[in-house]
């Protein structure tokens, strides 16, 4: 990579002491640490759902440590049986092990949460950067579109997009991504406006850097921090919207386990088998809470008032 004359003083590369202070702010925040630990645990559970086998006496098939049962395996004779030693959280109305389904359901939630934020973030950041840097008619058009999109509550917008695309995991990721994009666009837009007024942008322009280069090399790295914080908070929202849509019945198609649809299946047995709904709900609550705690901690780092 050749050194370019426009690669001049950039505040992106924070001084080491400054970076250490930011890290200190984060690690002093006990709730943020809790969020980080929970997030890591949930990620590990999702990744290794069917790995890490328990060693058993010879002749028996080893079972995965985290999800001891096949999440799709039905045991019709014991359907809706209460939690016991064999089945930590009981069986659902098809006789499937609820704990194992929750473990595998984490994959759906995290995949939808992370991918939809990636899609929404990319779309939104592109819109925000273009609007903020180019200004004029481009800015007006993009930001008015964003205003219109923001007029729809996220759930209603998600329902509308899913009505067009049809249900299923990939459509859901796309739908939630579209729902999230205007928020990213708005924040990226205002962040771009404030970075744009810096002298290094003017310096780059004065030595003839192209618009694309300025956006790519000078603006984008400088708004990235804000976007990462926003991403962690909106991952929580994305997971909640996914649960909402699955609960309504527009999510992943059965029998794939997803927390929202598991709760939905359980609502018809609330009187006699409340565990079918209770446990998957706790999984959603803990996961969304973990990302919210993490996002809160990250946001505090970027809040200049708290850094003093």
């Amino acid at each position, binding site marked *: 990579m050749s050194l370019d004359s426009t690669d001049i003083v950039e505040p992106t590369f924070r001084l080491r002491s400054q970076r250490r202070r930011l890290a200190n702010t984060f690690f002093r925040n006990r709730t943020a640490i809790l969020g980080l630990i929970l997030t890591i645990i949930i990620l590990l559970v999702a990744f290794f759902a069917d790995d890490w086998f328990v060693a058993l006496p010879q002749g028996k098939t080893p079972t995965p440590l985290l999800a001891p049962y096949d999440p799709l395996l039905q045991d019709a004779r014991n359907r809706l049986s209460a939690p016991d030693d064999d089945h930590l959280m009981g069986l659902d109305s098809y006789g499937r092990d609820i704990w194992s389904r929750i473990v595998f359901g984490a994959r759906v939630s995290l995949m939808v949460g992370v991918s939809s934020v990636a899609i929404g973030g990319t779309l939104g950041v592109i819109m925000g950067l273009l609007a903020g840097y180019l200004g004029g008619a481009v800015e007006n058009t993009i930001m008015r579109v964003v205003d219109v999109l923001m007029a729809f509550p996220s759930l209603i917008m998600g329902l509308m997009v899913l009505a067009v695309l049809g249900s299923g995991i990939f459509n859901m990721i796309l739908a939630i991504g579209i729902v999230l994009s205007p928020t990213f666009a708005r924040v990226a837009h205002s962040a771009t406006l404030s970075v744009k007024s810096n002298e290094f942008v003017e310096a780059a322009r004065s030595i003839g850097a192209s618009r694309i280069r300025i956006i790519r090399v000078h603006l984008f790295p400088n708004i990235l921090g804000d976007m990462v914080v926003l991403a962690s908070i909106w991952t929580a929202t994305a997971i909640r919207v996914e649960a909402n849509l699955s*609960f309504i019945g527009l999510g992943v198609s059965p029998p794939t386990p997803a927390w929202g649809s598991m709760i939905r299946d359980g*609502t018809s047995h*609330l009187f006699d088998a409340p565990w079918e709904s209770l446990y998957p709900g706790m999984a959603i609550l803990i996961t969304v809470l973990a990302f919210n705690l993490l996002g809160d901690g990250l946001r505090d780092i970027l809040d200049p008032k708290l850094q003093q």
Partner: protein
Amino acid sequence: MLKYLATRLALTIPTFLAVLTLVFFVVRVIPGDPATAALGDYASQEAVTALRERMGLNDPLYIQYFRFLADLARGDLGKSMITGKSISEMVRQVLPYTLELTLSAIFVGALLGVPLGIYTARNSNTTIDYIGRITSLAGLSVPAFYLGILIMLLFAIKLKLLPAVGGGDLNDFKSNITHLALPALTLGLIMTASVTRLTRSAMLNVLKEDYVRTARAKGLPERAVVFRHALRAALVPIVSIIGIWAANLIADSVLTETVFARPGLGKMLVGAIMQRDYTALQSVMVIYTGFVVVINLITDLVYSLVDPRITH
């Protein structure tokens, strides 16, 4: 003020028009032929063609679009493609349920959230504040339908205090209020979490201000300092979060109405999507977004009432 009101109202019209246009075209790109969806897969070709003609689906798109706008302007939402009933009539039947639910949830949220926020701000960094912060973050993390199920399990199934499902009879006060209590509590508690959090941080910011110290220094009772001096200034972000929540609650009512099997706009929306009832879907979307546009307008107007510093 009047001039501001006029400009703000004038700005609302293009937004609403843009939203309507978006809804119209989105419903048009939904895959599948509405006429076939209405008649079923085994309908004869002639029947489908006849229905398409009657529904005006054979006309060019721009004619359909202007007809849609003209019908709306006259308050005509068309007929349901599945039941053939007038959609305006269907909406008139379910709208009171959604409105009473949303309004009472806002009431619960503001009435609990603002005092709790003030209290935790005044006792910041104590154990109570710590518990309050975690609880309100948990409130932000719980999906509305799950909280609804928990509340239903506790109050309706375990304690048998209130009915679990249904919307009750709107003309019978007791039946109406008992059916409303649990769904309203569900949505209200979720809003409380948000309002508490925001009121706390807004109050913390304001309580640090010099004029609050001045007010204390001149010997005003603490109550006057907090409520007359600090709260007044903190009210702007509080009003804005209540406005945002009013719009959110309208959407979240989709979930509570599903959990509590309550009639309402949300239930109508989900039904329209599931049955591919395009005209109903389009109308319900228009009503939802119309509400949001109006709520945003009201929020903006309330701003200028609570904060005399905002001039137009």
